């Protein structure tokens, strides 16, 4: 019990870092799927490339926002 209390600071830091890593994993998977859909759509209809590109960047920013929620929580786990 004492050991756990003593190590709680570093365990919290480890938890925060692992959480941030998993959030980055989620972001990678999500943005990869957005990219996959976008590239396939461009291949099907090259004239729509501009529209598709704009939507892809917008969606990627949303997904990245969610991943950064996770990173902020990880940061809070380390400093709080």
């Amino acid at each position: 019990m004492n050991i756990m209390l003593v190590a709680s600071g570093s365990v919290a830091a480890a938890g925060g870092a692992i959480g941030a890593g998993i959030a980055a994993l989620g972001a990678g998977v999500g943005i990869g799927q957005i990219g996959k859909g976008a590239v396939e759509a461009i291949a099907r209809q090259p004239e729509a490339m501009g529209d598709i590109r704009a939507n892809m960047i917008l969606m990627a920013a949303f997904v990245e926002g969610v991943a950064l929620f996770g990173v902020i929580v990880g940061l809070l786990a380390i400093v709080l």
Partner: protein
Amino acid sequence: MKIKPISLHKISKQVMSCKRLFSLLVLTFGVFGASFCALAQTESNDKSASPVEPAAAEAKAGEKENNKLDVAKVIFGHIADAHEWHLFSIKHEGAEPTEIAFPLPVIIYNSQKGLSVFSSSKIEEGEPYEGYRLVRGPMKEKVVSDDGAPIYDISITKNVLSMLIGVALLLWVMMQAGKKYNKHGATKAPSGMQNFIEVVVIFLRDEVAKPCLGDKYKKYMPLLLTIFFFIWINNLLGLLPGGANFTGNIAVTACLALLAFIVILVNSKKHFWMHLINPPGVPFGIKFLLVPIEIVSLFIKPMALCIRLFANIMAGHIVILALICIVFIFAAINTYVGAGFVPVSLAFSIFMFLLELLVGAIQAFIFVNLTAVFIGQGLEGAHDEHGPHAEIIA
């Protein structure tokens, strides 16, 4: 007007100037890299520690003590708000580093002592002045009263000054364009700043305001445009070396989200509230589950706006600072490892800066887009009023 054909000679001249520009970039990159190598390599005999990067000199100055703690101090020192605007420190051999910093006014209101205004240089060292003292926490600093009384700190801090500079820049740009419209109306072709602003305003009107808000978009255009340009210019100012991390401060984004929330609430129609409390077409039992979710989502949407902007900008700044500090972490292990890592770190930092430029613009656009969407959801009338839709021609 006769259109002159572009000659091959002119094209080759442009290609030559592109090549020259590229060589200039490589040269600058190399010079920065070399000077970083010089800084990272010499820990004891460098007399010319020129202020190339603010983080560089400061990270080196704090390197002598505990390694891990000072990287955090450097990073949070750049991210957090402060009562002085610290630009960089010039390291001196064997003496305290010279800090180039501007003290900013501290304005405190205490219900007993009234308003106190003084320069922050008086409380910088940690000494109390007029009963107020600066307390430095791990992540930020704040002014506390010596007798523990609650105080209202309405100082001009680094973030406030950065906001005022951003607002001044924005006013100047917009008023330049506005003057031209006042003089010529829409009869003359746009020139100067007008070109850029027209593109952005028309983009926001046609892609954000009109689809979301329908016919009533004109009423909300000033709000949407102001929010967009305000967030964008403050994101850009935060990227400059020596810039303040304004939009990466949760108090700032919370205020912007609160503003959006108030506009959404005030402009929501009765139809929206009735649907919130009594969703139509839902089985009776599920309503008990759905209504709390709807009410919570009403508050969560602006909160998500706040956190999204805050997290994106702050995370971008932290990543850039961490990439630069990595050089010094490695240099503490071995100077040659540090020097060798400099080109990698510099390349990543430049990439992150470019990404942050993009992210700054995109996050401003997303904030405005979502605000328009939420206002539009509140403005929805009864569903039998349709806009024009395509008729099926039999």
